[in-house]
Each structure stands twice: as C-alpha cells, then as structure tokens.
C-alpha cells in the first residue's frame, strides 16, 4: 500500500514488514520490546513532514480526545521533546 506521500512509501513498507514479523514472532510470545524502533523513526520523520505539508496535523490533534488516544498532540511536540 502506498503512503499518502510517495516519498514515504518505501519507509512505510520497511516498517510494516518489520512490525508484522515482530508482532507475530515476538510480541504475541511475550517479548514486548520492539525490534523496529529505528525504522519507525525514519518512517515517522517522513510522514510528519507529509502531514504538515497536507495541513492534517490540527485535524488529527482535534480528533484525539474522541477516540481516547494516549498520544501527544503534534502541536505539543516541543513539550514532549523537552521531557525526554
């Protein structure tokens, strides 16, 4: 499946493949720490840029409370980075 931005597609596919393997071979067996962190960071960097360019970040931030998401808003990113 293509990403919303073609530049991110190979990164997304690499992450998806890693995730599916980790999920079925390790996570379900109780080994919960992910193998795919580095690939995820690369995919995310590309995706976040695409979301900003498409003007989607505010729409996503506004929708989070309705679905009980635990993740920080894009507009709070600076605060999250300070805490790390």
């Amino acid at each position, binding site marked *: *499946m*293509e*990403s*919303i931005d073609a530049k991110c597609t190979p990164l*997304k596919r690499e*992450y998806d493949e890693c*995730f*599916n393997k980790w*999920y*079925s071979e390790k*996570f*379900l067996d*109780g080994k*919960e*720490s*992910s193998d795919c962190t580095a690939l*995820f960071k690369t*995919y995310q960097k590309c*995706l976040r840029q695409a*979301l900003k360019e498409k003007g*989607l970040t505010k*729409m*996503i931030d*506004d*929708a*989070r409370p*309705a*679905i*009980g*998401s*635990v*993740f920080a808003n894009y507009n709070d990113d600076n605060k999250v980075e300070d805490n790390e």
Partner: protein
Amino acid sequence: MRLFEATHVFKHDWETVSLANWRKYPNEQTPHVRHVEILNQDVDPVTGVLRTERLIMVRQNVPMLVRKIFGGDTSYVLEYSEVDPRKQTLVMQSQNMTYSNLLSVGEYITYTPDPENSKHTLFTQSAQLKASGALCRFANKIEDICWNRFQDNAHIGKLGLEQVVSKILAERQAMTMPLAQTASD
C-alpha cells in the same frame, strides 16, 4: 441518529486474527481504503499493551447529493487501538475527521477469544452515525445514505479480514511443507 451493532465469530484463533488486523490492507474486498499510516505506536512498559494510532484515508463513489453537500468523496478517519497480548484483547476506536461538522461516525470494535470456543475469535462492532442539524431537511436522507454505505462496508470489511487470514494460513503452510517432505524421505 443511527446505531449499529454486530457480532461475528471468525473460526480462527485470536493470535492469527489479530495479526490479520494489522495486515488487512490492501485487500480486494475493500478498495475504498486507500491509505493507512501509523501515526504513533508503542508498547506500554508497565502493562505490555501495544498502543497504536492510525490515519486511514477512504475514497469511494458516493451519491451526487452526498458529493454536493460534503464537497468531495474522500475522508480521513483516526483510529486508536490497544492490544493486550496477556489478556488476548484487541480493542479499536475510530472517528471520522473530514466532514465532522456535518456527519459524525464513531466505531468501536473488539476482538477476543470466543468464550464458547477458545480456538475461535469473537468480533464485536458498534457504531453511531449522526448527521448535523445544520443539514436541515437533508439530515435524514444523508443519514440514510451513509448508514447503508456503512453497513455495506462493514460486510466487505469482514470478508476482507477472512481473506487476509486465509493468506496468512497459506504462508504458514508453505513454510512447513519442505520440513514435511524431508520427514517423509
């Protein structure tokens, strides 16, 4: 407002069905789902729960009335899910973002082992669909159209998941076959 509830039993174990959830798209049954992006994903270090946030983009043919009022046929949905591998639960909540001032569609889905047969998986789905009063005399008609579409999509969604489960089982079969042949030599 429309309320929707459905249950279904997949005759496969929970681990396989939960994996199929992650590999569901693309599939032939649901061409309207165009993009699925992982926005956030982590494992809670205390509970071991996998938490995921996804952005889903949908585009499909809609009646002219809907296209005119909504101004398009493309919508974005936000989904949050939690997988607890110890309790064997997958819970998902989603909400449309696009056109949310005109129409709200919220969906809640669970996958758990079937209490009547632990080798099967029980799927439950509930959804609420409400058109805004701002649509005035079109509100009822829009709800009807979107409601029918939601039910159609729910049906093909289940077919799509079954197809993905079959694919996963075929892959497993292919991986074990060389061993079986060696054993019989």
